[in-house]
């Protein structure tokens, strides 16, 4: 039984230009890249469809300008999509009334912005509490929650400062804390860790994963960093010029990239951490050693065993049945060379 869809979008288009609607209509709702170029429209999001299930982390990647932020804004309906539908818990939010939207944002959605979007006239604490403030929650209660969150993101002691006094990373953390204030079901994150230094970034990622495990939020996460994507993602979506090129588990992307663009993205990925034994095993032959590894283990984890053994290593599945074997040369070829699927 599959989990219910939390967010789904179907045939989503966002076109920028003089008269986007009629441009779409003229090209029967499917303008080609050539059409965009010729008539000077920008296809920031082109015909994107996907689902995110409850509790899943979907990472969106793509080069700068490929439409990641625009897609996120369409999902949160900060901008109106040119055409297509976005469903949130089965409700089409492209048709939601302003009141319904406010209600949704007050209780169900949180968002971290690429450029922070902090309110310059409010202190760190007031910024974090702002979503609670607009709901009319009493000051003592919201500030209590705000202090908790400030603690969580490591800003304790800075509560009374104004954003302009903070470093980029600190501002980013205020944004993260603010987006958590209302305990949203769905969390939109636009490059949330990009302004952080590597150490804090690592910490925040861990913290993020811990939160996710504890609170089981549904998350759409934009990043430029494939390593980060692999760390946090259940599935990764790769965008190019507004269109979705490939959507799948990290392993799928690395193992069989849909096109050279995706391959380029995954080229420097730590394969050993991503690819699992199942991908490289071959049918069993008699020569296998007595050592066995599980089918879903990552290559990095089994490498010492496989490399240390002079024969192929047995692969077993969840029920301890032998399903194949892994050869040493194959493992080395996959982990340390460029060619993924010879």
């Amino acid at each position, binding site marked *: 039984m599959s989990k219910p869809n939390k967010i789904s979008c179907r045939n989503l288009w966002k076109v920028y230009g003089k008269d986007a609607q009629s441009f779409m209509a003229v090209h029967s709702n499917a303008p080609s890249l050539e059409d965009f170029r010729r008539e000077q429209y920008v296809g920031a999001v082109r015909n994107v469809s996907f689902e995110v299930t409850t509790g899943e982390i979907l990472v969106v990647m793509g080069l700068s300008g490929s439409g990641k932020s625009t897609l996120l*804004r369409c999902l*949160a309906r*900060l901008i109106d999509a040119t055409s297509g539908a976005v469903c949130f818990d089965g409700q089409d939010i492209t048709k939601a009334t*302003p009141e319904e939207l*406010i*209600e949704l*944002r*007050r*209780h169900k*959605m*949180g*968002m971290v*912005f*690429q*450029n*922070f*979007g*902090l*309110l*310059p*006239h*409010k*202190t760190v604490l*007031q910024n974090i509490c*702002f*979503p609670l*403030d*607009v*709901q009319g929650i009493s000051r003592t209660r919201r500030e209590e929650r705000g202090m908790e969150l400030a603690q969580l993101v490591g800003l304790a002691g800075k509560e*009374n*400062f*104004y954003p*302009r*006094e903070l470093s980029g990373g600190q501002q980013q953390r205020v*944004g993260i804390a*603010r*987006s958590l204030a*209302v305990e949203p079901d769905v969390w939109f994150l636009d490059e949330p860790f990009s302004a952080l230094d590597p150490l804090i970034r690592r910490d925040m990622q861990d913290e993020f994963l811990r939160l996710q495990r504890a609170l089981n939020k549904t998350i759409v996460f934009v990043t430029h960093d494939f390593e980060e994507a692999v760390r946090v993602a259940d599935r990764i979506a790769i965008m190019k010029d507004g269109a979705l090129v490939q959507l799948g588990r990290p392993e799928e992307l690395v193992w069989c990239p849909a096109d050279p663009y995706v391959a380029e993205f995954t080229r420097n990925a730590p394969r050993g951490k991503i690819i699992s034994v199942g991908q490289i095993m071959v049918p069993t032959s008699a020569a296998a050693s007595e050592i066995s590894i599980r089918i879903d283990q990552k290559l990095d984890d089994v490498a010492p065993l496989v490399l240390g053994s002079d024969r192929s290593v047995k692969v077993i599945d969840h029920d301890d049945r032998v399903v194949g074997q892994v050869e040493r040369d194959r493992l080395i070829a996959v982990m340390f060379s460029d060619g993924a699927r010879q």
Partner: protein
Amino acid sequence: MTASADSAASRSKSILPGILVGGAAVVSLILFAVAPDWARQWPAEQIVPLRDWVTRFFQWLANEASFGLFTVKDLTRLVSDILSGPLTITDGLLHKGFSQFGLAALPWITVVLIMGIVGYAIGGGRLGIATTLGFAYLAVFGMWPDAMKTFSLVLVTVPIAALIGLMLGILATRNQLAERVLSALFDVMQATPHLAYLGPIAIFFGFGAVPRLIATAIFAVPPMARCTILGLRTVAPEIIESGLMSGCTPRQLLWRVQLPAAQRTLLVGLNQVIMQTLAMVVIASLIGASGLGHRLLFSLQQLQMGKAIEYGVAIVVIAILLDRISQALIARNPARAPTEAEKAALLRTSVILGILLASSILVAWLVPAFRLLPKDMTFTTAPYWDQSIRWLSRTLFVYLEFFRDDVTTYILVPIRNLFLSLPWLPTCLLVATAGLLIGGWRLAVTAFLLLGFIAAIGFWVPAMMTLYLTSMAVIICVLLGLPIGICAAHRPRFTRFALALCDTLQTFPSFIYLIPVIMLFRVGDLASIIAIIAYAMVPIIRYTHLGLMRVPANTLEAGIACGCTGRQMLLKVELPQAVPEILLGLTQTITMALFMTSITALIGSRDLGQEILKALPAVDTGRGLLAGLSIAAIGITATRLIETWAVRRKRELGLA
């Protein structure tokens, strides 16, 4: 081969405008020479009686017009009543007292303390001391009641104007139609001189404090609305989006996200409201005689220069202090919110200050001199001023008089006669041709219609008088202002001094400039022109400086690398790039010069300003309003031409 063809083509392209200009000049010269009478002077019997129509329309509106349930008169009475409420309170507090409750006005010592505290709270110790001394000056020099009358009006006008401006600005950002209407209206309003507002207000609200307040508020609204629009437009989209994602309703978004985020620009608007209010409060004393402005006007007209100087200084003191306070408000950005301990300390301080204020009232109750300084305890420097001016006149005026008379007879009068003899049609055509060359047909037609309008309603001659005074002043402004601006850009030590001087000069209400001019030159064209120059020179200096400072460093280095001398650098590298900025400064100088020209009507120049002045007591609304609009027409034509050119230059230089 192609290269030479190209260069030939580009040469012919660059020659083309030259031919056009030359042709236009020749044609218009011929026109000027052979123009028939009707093209020289708009025939008197053909003049559109717009004046009378407007006058009658306003009379009808003010006296008879009705919205069914209530008349316009009821409406204006209502507005008057509403506005006189807050005015009664501030008047009562500051100078009148509340006789019905048997309460006196606040003693001067208390008001001085309050202002000192306000200055200190907003701008720190130095501003606190400055405001204390400044207001004490008003008391000690015996101008307290008059100063408080003015101050009371300012206190009521500023919030009203700021609030209306804010609301209109918000409206404009929400509704496209409203924005277009308002921005066109503001363009005209901001090109219309202060004086012209008085007539229509007087017919609706009569004479007195309330109409004064209304005229002032109306004058101060556009800059605030403009700043609001600008501020709201420039709030970063992420900030708005983060507000939306926080679940703001549209109202919450406006009041708790957008407006606070635009705070800085809004405060700049507030500062402009304060400055415009002070500028207008003085002029508005023409329709509601009270306070410093009235005294200043009166002593100017009586040629009591000593007194005029004192009142002038008092107005300037108030203007500078309020300017500095609002500037401090803009510059304020604390690193963090106060901690609990600091809040407690603040509370303690406020209690102490409260006690101090209360005891100052008590002291004033015991010692009457602290309530209002009796005449024999105040100073006046007026006699000394008068003496020194008399001495100055005796020793200096002989020479000055020669200078004035010579300049007037041999330079100004011939030029004036030239201007006054300009035939309307060829002149309009010439300007339209300039418009055509600079910006195309639309600009040409606009220019022609705007100037033709002046001729058609029979204001051509006074308009030429205005044009003459203004152009003389503007030319000299440029001749003096450019070098000063260049100096300011090149000599860092001079920069601070020059900019500080510009800042200060800009806070002076226009009237003030009449004082020294009358002292030195009495009245006449020369006096008027010098007053206009003094008032209008600041923008050209500022923008020259700004334009030169903005020349990119790598261009400068390229120039030096090419071996330019200092002079070549300035003439060939820096100035050409600064031209667009300088032109913008020029448009502001022109607008300000036109404003000041209308004010010099008070010392007798016979221009459009004089028409406005004469219309005031006669309640000839049409005459005053149309004269004001004619000035606006001249201003708008000039600014449009120059702005279009500036924008084009900017594009050609790749700066826009």
